[in-house]
């Protein structure tokens, strides 16, 4: 409550190898930090108390946006402002730029990184305030009781935990079929964005595929969707600083007036970005227009189940899907 962090040892490794060694050395007592926008809140509330904090923000090898033949790579500690200013990203993946530019506030984007934006923990107030919930290792969910205040929580895929993904880039990266490159103990592995974000049924204590010894080093976006039609919209209470109530990202290709390929994902409705497969299936081979808008609205949130205070997310998902369709008309 007093905003005073616990004491910890701060490390500034000079290479990924050193960072990796440190995180291996400290194990569960270690904590990777870059922009600090998620971490410092945890520390100031003293609800997370790592003994060693390993700052990777200054690792040059993790920073920058590079053009490759088949993909564009974004280093994990590239700041959101650097992404927003990137002509390369703007040219190929404007949907990602639209998402990035709506994250938090300009000040936060100056320090916050893409890695942090995708790896951040959920913002469930009960969990963040230190309630011993399932996600925190306890044996109940405080956000899903008959009286819980859960306006911001999930309408899909509830498995003990009802927290949602807070990320604005996540649905865009899922739509774009991005790949996450993860370094662990000197080895690297690649995970599709869609598998990178994990729900409570997979592991209730994590939001992503990242395990304790992992460092997210790079996000690769295939050029498959470069120049595609796109749509991103974030609905939040305020025009800056807020997490999404619901957001939506879409990329699509058309041929002869028909939608040949489309990927659509929605944030803020479940623990992971939700692929809107109903809408994708609906649209394939169809022409965007009033009928598709109406039908997209109808199927977008099928299966959703509201908690006490988030009924609005159901029509909102439908409305956003309809708007995405409308953007192609």
């Amino acid at each position: 409550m007093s905003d005073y962090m616990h004491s910890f040892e701060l490390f500034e490794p000079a290479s990924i190898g050193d960072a990796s060694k440190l995180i291996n050395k400290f194990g569960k007592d270690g904590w990777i930090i870059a922009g600090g926008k998620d971490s410092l809140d945890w520390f100031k509330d003293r609800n997370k108390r790592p003994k060693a904090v390993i700052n990777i923000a200054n690792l040059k090898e993790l920073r920058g946006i590079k053009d490759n033949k088949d993909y564009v790579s974004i280093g994990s500690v590239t700041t959101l402002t650097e992404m927003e200013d990137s002509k390369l990203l703007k040219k190929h993946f404007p949907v990602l730029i639209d998402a990035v530019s709506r994250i938090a506030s300009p000040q936060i984007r100056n320090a916050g990184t893409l890695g942090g934006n995708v790896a951040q923990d959920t913002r469930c107030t009960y969990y963040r305030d230190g309630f011993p919930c399932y996600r925190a290792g306890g044996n109940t969910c405080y956000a899903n009781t008959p009286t819980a205040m859960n306006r911001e929580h999930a309408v899909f895929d509830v498995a003990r935990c009802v927290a949602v993904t807070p990320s604005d880039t996540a649905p865009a990266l899922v739509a774009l079929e991005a790949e996450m490159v993860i370094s662990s103990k000197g080895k690297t592995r690649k995970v599709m964005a869609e598998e990178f974000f994990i729900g409570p049924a997979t592991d209730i204590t994590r939001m992503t595929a990242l395990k304790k010894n992992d460092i997210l080093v790079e996000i690769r976006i295939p050029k498959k969707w470069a120049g595609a039609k796109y749509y991103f919209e974030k609905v939040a209470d305020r025009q800056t600083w807020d997490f999404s109530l619901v957001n939506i990202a879409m990329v699509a290709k058309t041929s002869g007036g028909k939608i040949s390929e489309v990927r659509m994902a929605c944030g803020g409705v479940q623990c992971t970005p939700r692929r809107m497969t109903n809408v994708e299936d609906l649209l394939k081979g169809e022409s965007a227009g009033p009928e598709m808008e109406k039908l997209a609205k109808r199927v977008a949130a099928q299966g959703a189940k509201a908690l006490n205070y988030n009924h609005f997310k159901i029509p909102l998902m439908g409305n956003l899907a309809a708007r995405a369709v409308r953007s192609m008309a």
Partner: protein
Amino acid sequence: MGFNLIGKNFTPPDVHAKVTGSAKYAEDFRKDGMVFIKIYSSPMPHAKIKSIDVSKAAKMPGVVGFLLPDEIKQPKDAGHAILSNYPVFVGQPILAVAAETEQQAEDALEAVNVNLQPLAFCIDPLDSLKPKGVNAHKDGNVANRKGIKLQEVKWSGKDFALAGDDKLPMGKAVTEWSYGDVESGFKKAKVVLEETFVSAANAHHALEPRSAAAYWENGKCHVWGSTQSSSFAHPSLAKYIGIPPTKLNLVTEFCGGGFGGKAYSYPIMALPALMSKKLNGRPVMMRLSRAEEFYNGSARAGFQGWVKIGFGNDGRVLAMDSYVIQDNGSTGGFWDFQNFGVAGSVILQPKAMRFRGIPVLTNTPPKGAQRGPGENQTANILEPILDKGARKLGIDRLALRLVNTPGGGTGAKVGPKRVPVTSAYLREGLVQASKKFGYSSRVKKSGKQANGKIRSIGIGQAYHAAGYNGWDGMVRITPDGKLHIHTGVGNLGTYSYAATSRVAAEVLGYDWKNTVIERGGTLKAMPFNIGQFGSNTSFTMTRTNFAAATDAKQKLLEIGAMMMGGKASDYELRKEKVVSKKGSNSITFARAAQKAIELKGKYAGHVVDEDLKGLTKISAKMIAGTGLVGVAKDKIPKKGSVPALAAAFIEIELDPETGRVEILDYLGVADVGQVLHPQGLDAQIRGAAVMGFGLAALERYVYDPAYGRPNARGLYQAKPPTYLDVPANLDSLAVKGAYDKQNPVGAKGVGEPIMGAASSAYLSAVAEAMDGQLLNRVPVVADQIINAMAKQPQSHKLLQTNCQ
């Protein structure tokens, strides 16, 4: 009026420090050996303290001391404790630890063992009023600092059953008044509306959390504090510390936001002084965190209410009946609920009216005055209802307001006693602003636009009392010829301390360059005048400064007569000289000041009027012999009640698919009588509008009823508006032709209703965009609009509180 300074723009003297960052706020002060305190706050909404053990914490590095609740005088009834031995809300301070660093103090807190026994708690007033409802306090569930002692009030099961599910239950009230024949008014009415409503509580969220530092030296306590008011904070802080005011030196140079929450002193402001006393005077600094500010910074009271309004054919309000249940928080709170009745009586001028209300304790943070406490909630509820009345009557919404709103200067009345206003020109304001805004043509363009959004116009109006009298003023002319204007009003950030000080310079004919405003604490020799709150500064402080300057003027003339012969009436003041009306004889003010010092007595502040307040007398002694002292109590005649009145026009575009409301244009109009400082007024109107939009649309006050703890205590959760949520240009207007004859320069204040006018205009526009559908709930946030536009039920229950 022909003024040299009044009504003209100037740069207030504290602007430079604020812009450059050199301004020193309470937490910026340091002193050798300073230690820091941290507070252990209750994790439970209602609990009994079984034991406190600090033995382990006492051995922690750097720890120098503790203050426990039993060492502090505990308030009676529902008082607000500095440190409580009986916590009644989550976040209530229980004990404090002092250590050499804040880190050490925080670490030590974790080693403190407070054994609490949880007690049943209540966060919804209606729950507490039920026959078997929980009392938020062991001795009762109803109290208010305005004369309502802590007591238990329970309504009958029948009271609740009669109301059903769609109306406010209305059992026994503790406040009730009426005038006129209300029932007959409803019978004559063409349209009668009955609405049940909820207005959420709202935390103050001052950007500068409460900070204070203190030390003791030679038996005197020195405090650096954050407060809106200077002299008004002084005796109450001394009382909290337990010393006579003469033993307290208070520094209050800058205040990083108060909004009523720092109207004067507050309990925790005394904590560093008490800790310092225990540490033999060692300097102690207290800096609250954002979360602690939420708990200690008070909040606007929430309402659950009901109102019935009867309109005549032309929209005239023939009768109004109302009932407000106030969420009073866990202490004595503020009397917002009573202001609902008063504000309704002023803005609508109903021919007959009844008001009933009850303030109910809940285990939530203390509720306190927040900008327009009660009056702005009233505006938010009533203005959309006026629109509904106009719709039902088939008349224009502006026309309906014009037949009710006070105007024409005099004639309007205030409250149950129907006290006449000193001046009211809101009707003129509505007319002038409607023209400037282009109301008629914009209304025609309202409705669904090609982009799918719905454009609409809103009108808002609000009221607050705006002035007092009987306080002291003090000025001094030093032998260098400078005019020192001593003011204890405080520096909330509105710059009105400076604008009102200019009256003294105006009276004495001073060039503004030759004046110094003495402010910022007791060492500056403050007269005792009212604080900077309640929209009163402009009216009240212009009077005190006028009175003090008039006294100085008389003394200058008398000295002129002494030095140059004849009578005082043979002289006048011109260009900082006392000049003979007949010839060319003159002496400079500088010379007259020198003479005053030689004369001593009343001229140099050695002898002052008996009827001055205690602090004024002490302050006069401090400066006695340093110049010509003008010091006087404001005895300028005043009859009636001073109303601050404001109205607003807004144009919005509502997106029915996302619930987003974009403000396209805004014009706020204020009836301030004579404008003191045009630039300052413009900034006030625009700033108040931004705060109003937050109250109406964005700011959230959410409590979990199962745990009695807040879900939105941080700024990113509570969501005060940002500048991206408002248009870049907000427009302002002062009513032309307005002048308050009971103020020596025609001025009156307007700090509060300019917020309520904005918030109510916003809500009026939103309801209009939703085809007149009233949500009767403030704030109106995106989810409610999405639900309404999707024609699905709202998630909240009709009378539910603390959920938006």
